[in-house]
């Protein structure tokens, strides 16, 4: 009974988080659209704006001023950058949870301003972070534990995706596939409840047509599935180029002699200038996405031009510090890439293939799935948004190769690369990442025999024997750690007649040493090298200031506890 009521409580938590997160995301999307109309980013508002000469000025000024505001906002975030889905995944995977409210709110504002002012960034990143932050905040409000915190984060994410795409299945799977990275039944109920809330609210508020209309696709020829596979493989390469452009632009930006405060403004102005010639790269690119699925909207060379410019524009905006996601631009890039493939295949086969839209969608998933590391979510998005089984199969053919090739080329996703750069490597699984994240400080012990290096052997033997320890740690007058001695060796030496010699002459060689900020994972690695009681811990390896020791038993206990915790979270059903 107890576990049933806890399941129900968790589901209620999920529904509550989902409801609010869904409303928040509806508001977010609405404000972005409104800002795009007011600030002349949307094509309609640009068309209606007169006098036309001023449009040029506005096109450059709006992203530049938006960039300045974003730069100022980021000064108030401790890390001086907007938080992203990578931060959410980190919090969940390390079971830290507790997403900060202040960074969450400021990141959402930064996303709003960036998107509203036409930066070439996506809306789903800020949305996911917003939903997750709210979930975490709500869990803290209820004083729930870390597990519930993680589940609330996942519920927020699921609701936001379910609402923004109006695709509840994709939302639920995204939360499991990308954020939780497991499919425990315990988490499924609340996440599903959140996804359903998102769907219901989106249905009630948004009157929106499907993202894609693909009329009468017909069944593709058998050979075309081969083409879809190849598009998948090539799409992974495009995704790799996209990811590396973003990361490279970030590295380049840090080396620029421009203060971080004005970097986004510089990027905004540059984007505005480019948009004077190619307005397609401005903003989230919803119109470009739509047009790319229509044959004849772009010529072949135009597709290449807009594709390359969109990649560069997105890299510039995100690298220089605009707040925003990478998913929506990846959708545009992928669709343009797919349309390009479709155009080429149409030329080669003399129009024997399927409609351009099918190729555009295959290209879209082939690029986006590796970028966000979510093959099943991408497939479900296509399926839910088109309701077309044939199209879903075509998309699956593309995804089949895109994700594994992408993983080989650059990693599981852009988020994983970002996390690795921040010191969290999930490529070897979550338990390792968690042990890497777990510090040794809490396991530090002061119950050990500390000896001055000059102590005579006999005295050392006596002290160690009385204390019941087999090891002693030599610390000089400056608190510097000098080495470890073992009772066995000292006893042997003193029996050999060296009882008056100082202990520093009998230091055990090859003794490991851990700095204070080492992780449990590092400590476990050191343990493999030696057979002893404990490892000495110092402030840092340069000063060697002695802090205490960490016992092998304590490390093993920490490891077992963590593994058990993970096992309960990932495989528990109640």
């Amino acid at each position: 009974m107890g576990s049933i009521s806890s399941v129900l409580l968790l589901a209620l938590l999920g529904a509550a988080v989902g409801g609010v997160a869904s409303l928040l995301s509806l508001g977010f999307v609405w404000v972005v659209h409104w800002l795009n109309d007011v600030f002349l980013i949307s094509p309609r508002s640009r068309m209606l704006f007169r006098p036309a000469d001023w449009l040029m000025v506005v096109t450059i000024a709006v992203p530049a001023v938006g960039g300045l505001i974003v730069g100022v906002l980021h000064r108030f975030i401790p890390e001086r950058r907007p938080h992203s889905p990578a931060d959410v995944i980190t919090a969940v995977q390390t079971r830290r949870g507790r997403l900060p409210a202040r960074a969450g709110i400021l990141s959402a504002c930064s996303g709003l301003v960036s998107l509203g002012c036409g930066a070439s960034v996506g809306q789903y990143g800020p949305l996911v972070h917003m939903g997750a932050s709210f979930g975490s905040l709500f869990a803290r409000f209820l004083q729930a534990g870390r597990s519930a915190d993680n589940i609330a984060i996942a519920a927020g994410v699921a609701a936001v995706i379910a609402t923004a795409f109006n695709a509840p299945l994709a939302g639920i799977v995204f939360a499991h596939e990308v954020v939780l990275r497991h499919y425990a039944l315990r988490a499924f109920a609340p996440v599903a409840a959140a996804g359903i809330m998102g769907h219901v609210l989106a249905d009630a508020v948004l009157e929106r047509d499907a993202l894609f209309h693909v009329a009468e696709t017909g069944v593709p020829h058998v050979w075309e599935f081969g083409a879809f596979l190849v598009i998948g493989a090539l799409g992974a390469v495009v995704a790799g180029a996209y990811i590396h452009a973003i990361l490279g632009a970030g590295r380049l930006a840090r080396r620029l002699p421009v203060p971080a405060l004005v970097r986004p403004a510089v990027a905004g102005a540059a984007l505005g200038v480019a948009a004077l010639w190619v307005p397609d790269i401005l903003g989230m690119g919803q119109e470009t996405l739509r047009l790319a699925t229509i044959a004849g909207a772009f010529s072949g060379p135009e597709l290449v031009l807009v594709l390359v410019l969109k990649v560069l524009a997105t890299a510039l905006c995100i690298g220089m510090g605009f707040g925003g996601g990478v998913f929506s631009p990846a959708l545009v890039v992928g669709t343009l890439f797919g349309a390009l493939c479709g155009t080429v295949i149409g030329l080669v086969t003399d129009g024997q293939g399927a409609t351009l839209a099918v190729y555009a969608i295959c290209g879209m998933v082939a690029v986006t799935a590796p970028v966000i590391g979510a093959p099943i979510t991408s497939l479900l998005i296509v399926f839910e948004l088109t309701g077309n089984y044939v199209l879903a199969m075509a998309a699956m053919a593309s995804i089949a190769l895109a994700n594994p090739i992408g993983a080989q080329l650059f990693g599981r996703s852009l988020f994983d690369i970002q996390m690795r750069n921040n010191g969290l490597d999930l490529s070897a699984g979550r338990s390792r990442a968690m042990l890497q994240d777990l510090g040794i400080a809490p396991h530090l012990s002061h119950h050990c025999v500390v000896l001055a290096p000059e102590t005579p052997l006999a005295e050392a033997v006596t002290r160690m024997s009385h204390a019941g320890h087999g090891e002693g740690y030599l610390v000089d007058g400056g608190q510097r750690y000098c080495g470890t001695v073992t009772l066995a060796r000292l006893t042997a030496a003193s029996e050999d007649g060296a009882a008056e010699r100082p202990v520093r002459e009998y230091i055990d060689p090859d003794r490991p040493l851990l700095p204070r900020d080492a992780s449990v994972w590092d400590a476990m690695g050191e343990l493999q090298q030696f057979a002893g009681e404990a490892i000495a811990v110092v402030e840092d390896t340069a000063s060697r200031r002695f802090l205490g020791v960490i016992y092998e038993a304590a490390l093993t206990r920490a490891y077992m506890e963590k593994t058990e915790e993970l096992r309960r979270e990932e495989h528990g059903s109640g």
Partner: protein
Amino acid sequence: MVRDRRWLRRARWVPGQGVLGAVRACVSGLLLTAMPAEAEEERSITVLSWGGAYEEAQRETWFDPFTEATGIEVRVERYSGGLRELRSEADSEHAPWDVVDLTMSDALAACEEGLIQRLDPGMLRPGPEGTPPRRDFLDGALTECAIAHTVFATVVAYDRTAFPGRRPTAIGDLFDRERFPGPRALQRAPTANLEWALLSYNVPLEELYELLSTRRGLRLAFRRLASLGDAVRWWDAPEEPARLLADGEVVMASGYNGRFFDVMVNEDAPIEILWDAQIREFETWAIPRNAEHPDAARAFIRFATRSDRLAAFARHLPYGPARHSAAEQVTTHATTGIDMRLHIPTHPLNSRRAVRKDESWYASVHDRINERFNAWLAEWKERTAEAASESAE
């Protein structure tokens, strides 16, 4: 109550104005029932309207009953839309018309240009159950200078005998010359043609005007129109397309649903309407800035937009009344007795994929888009002439 008190306060502080205002209010109030002395020259007003079956229905349900109620005669002049007439009379002392029947987009543009007067919706009659006009009129029906009276739709109609075994079901069929061969009549104007051309690519309705605002979207639309080649007969006067269709000159035609309905009912012509992608628009009343009899014009608008008058009009022509209370009263056709609810554009069966015309878009881009359309049309003419001479050789 609040308003009354405020009026009293104003009357006390500025007595002259208050009294004057009261007198003026009395005069316009009396206009409906008795003729005040100063209205000697207001024995008649002139309405600029569209002619045809539309004008006949207006006369029967609005003009004649108005004359009967007030003694003010209603004279009618005809035009075929646009602002040319209003603009050409803008600087004369008195416009030749007191009331103009404008489409909403023309009304918005005319308001912007100051060609028509501001109209206070407060002058309108409440609904039969006392519903205030602001709630009773449809969303977007009341604007600064114009008051919508009816909803009409631009639709594609087709000759149901022209395509044995099949019939057009979606707007894309208008451009499908393979499955639906034969000449089409389209209006010599960008409106509706551009929307349909772009919708034929299966773009969603709510993105229609965003996409039409992009270079590429517009290019796609013109390309689709061009794909019709020499199969197009361009029409100017609104009665033309129904005539061409009834006479078998074309197999499909764009036009106002009312005109098609007219030949369907009165001539029993084998015409059917393709409701898919109907473009819905408000028809409005407006008063020219320099109208000679503005008070009588206001009295007329107040009379003609009464719920019962709008419902009566919908018994003659399938125009959806612009106010909810009137739409609920729509019954049968005045002469044939058919159920009119099935023929008005606002019926759920017909409005599944209705385009709400983006009036502010047209009001703003009107001239630019016309220019672009005319340039394209000139090019089209050249090309079809070339093709014709080539095929003759």
